[in-house]
């Protein structure tokens, strides 16, 4: 938000401005310095964790941390891409809850809260993803065609879609879910939760796309200066729309995985998660003004939040002070990463 005059530390070159340098640094990087900002904070957390609890550094515990963060990670992936493109999506958390609900009520019998359509059960997952995409597309319609503010459109959708969730589920948790729908969130592949693999693959694809592909790079151009991007022949509306749709699909996927992990869809699945999504993305170096940050940085943000949460659980912090301590650690981590990178945040 802040428009501070940047004081970017410059080239590793000689001290005279006029020496045009050949590119010694890699041109595109997974992460710029500011995206590695969290690494020190993460290491400090790791060390503290190892001291406090012998469980902390066990593979089992770390694997659990990863699994617990998959839904958040996918939402952050979606939000990071949307933010880089210079837009906003608050409705992801509702989509994460509603897409599975609608998919489920379309396939299960009325006795299990179904709508009576009873479509084949294998359709549940694909349906869920499609519904997520449609919500993203609808957001895109309002934002791009009606030129409404993305923030406010998706805030309206946050409420509306959560409302549809409650309406369609009758407010109750859906317990009787097709086995196929639980598979991805529950199964293990090679000793690690399938959902972790899926999130990992999604991030790798995202990182490669945003680093090495024209369409991916165009997100930065659009987020940085949409008029300049347009003048360079980038189809800004089409790209933005696509990103919003992918965002919806990823949120729906997160919902599927979370459903498998939790074994049911509660009426408040995903509620308030959007705050954590923004926290992770912004802590990870994504700018709310668009055009800046990397997906790798965002992933670090997710991991940091997960580690803090895990640590506090292992420490058995009292319920009454849990939130205060959690918030304080986030603030300290922020200050730490600010001091280690020496870069103002946006």
């Amino acid at each position, binding site marked *: 938000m802040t428009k501070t005059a940047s004081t970017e530390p410059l080239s590793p070159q000689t001290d005279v401005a006029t020496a045009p340098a050949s590119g010694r640094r890699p041109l595109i990087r997974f992460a710029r310095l500011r995206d590695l900002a969290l690494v020190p904070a993460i290491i400090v957390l790791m060390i503290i964790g190892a001291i406090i609890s012998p*469980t902390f550094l066990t593979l089992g515990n770390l694997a659990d941390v990863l699994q617990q963060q998959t839904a958040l990670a996918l939402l952050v992936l979606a939000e990071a891409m949307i933010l880089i493109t210079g837009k906003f999506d608050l409705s992801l958390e509702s989509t994460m809850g509603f897409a599975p609900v609608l998919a489920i009520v379309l396939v299960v019998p009325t006795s299990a809260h179904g709508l009576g359509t009873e479509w084949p059960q294998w359709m549940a997952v694909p349906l869920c993803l499609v519904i997520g995409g449609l919500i993203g597309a609808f957001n895109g319609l309002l934002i791009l065609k009606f030129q409404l503010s993305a923030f406010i459109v998706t805030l309206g959708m946050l409420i509306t879609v959560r409302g549809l969730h409650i309406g369609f589920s009758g*407010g109750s948790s859906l317990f009787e879910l097709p086995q196929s729908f639980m598979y991805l969130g529950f199964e293990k592949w090679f000793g690690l939760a399938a959902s972790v693999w899926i999130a990992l693959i999604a991030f790798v694809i995202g990182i490669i796309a945003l680093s090495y592909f024209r369409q991916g790079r165009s997100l930065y151009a659009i987020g940085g200066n949409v008029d300049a991007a347009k003048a360079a022949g980038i189809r800004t509306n089409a790209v933005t729309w696509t990103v919003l749709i992918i965002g919806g699909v990823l949120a729906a996927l997160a919902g599927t995985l979370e459903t498998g992990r939790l074994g049911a869809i509660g009426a408040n699945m995903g509620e308030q998660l959007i705050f954590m999504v923004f926290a992770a993305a912004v802590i990870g170096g994504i700018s709310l003004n668009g055009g800046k940050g990397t997906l790798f940085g965002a992933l670090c943000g997710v991991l940091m939040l997960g580690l803090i949460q895990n640590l506090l659980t292992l420490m058995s912090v009292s*319920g009454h002070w849990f939130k205060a301590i959690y918030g304080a650690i986030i603030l300290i981590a922020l200050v730490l990463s600010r001091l280690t990178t020496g870069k103002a945040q946006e």
Partner: protein
Amino acid sequence: ACGESSTGSAPGGTAGDPNAKVGVDFPRADSDFWNSYIKYVPQFAKELNVNMMDPTNSQNKVENLVANVQSLQGQGAKAIVMAPQDTGAIATTLQRLEQQKIPVVTVDTRPDNGKVYMVVRADNKAYGEKACKFLGDKLGGKGKVVEFQGALSSVNGRDRSEAFAACMKQNYPDITVFEEPTDWEGSKASSALQTRLNQHPDIKGIYMQAGGVFLAPTLQVLRSTNHLLPASDPNHIFIVSNDGIPQEFESIRKGEIDATVSQPADLYAKWALFYAKAALEGKTFKPGPTDHGSTIVEVGNGNLEDQLPAPLVTKDNVDDKALWGNQIGQ
């Protein structure tokens, strides 16, 4: 009902009009327990001949509750049934209603302050105690137990947590309790349990304060970590839940969990409306046992609370037809 005194001085100025309008506010629309309650209310209204207005829903927010009550009143409600989830911030509203002689019945929770005609509730401290005793006995007084605390900002979450802790401390000092703050969120419970099982693979018991939100996530974690073992297995984790929704009964039958407290959604609805009507008729009540198996107790402020029975359900009585969890949706 018993415990009822002769028709005496009316609490409201409306004595004698049992058909006056009764306003009902539902606290939330996103919980299995409350959904059952929402279903029962109109049903009992018809049965008890209560002139119920269109109910409002405060969506978990006390601001909404206050606004809803104002508008119910504006539309002519002469008695109000509500279930404030935030039990403090309703004080002024109660005060105003009292001034205007509109009797109030609260359900599920009791206000911290202010006068109400009747509280229809169950003893939430007893929930915690029952869960504690059940686990304590099953574990033989030692071992490790995980407790999913409800939001500490809710009187129910606090009552259950405090009673459970006090009982454990007093009766089973050798049992270690891990209190996990969850804000009534299933995903937080799931993460905490996973972490805790990793740290202490020898967890022996779980107390979840609301089956409506914690049941599925808990089972799912146990399933994935191969902890879902029959009661006969020495490594079986004893689980006691709370709420009494049909899914919990299902799990008890399957042996996945061991017990739950059936919080009577049906009786909450029935007796709330009953008392609302009684208030309109100008009846008054006093402490003592009732004719419907409950006890009215004085809870301070001159308020009365009808503490309805909330039975512990185990494998032995899970098929009891009288339990609301066995009736709803059948």
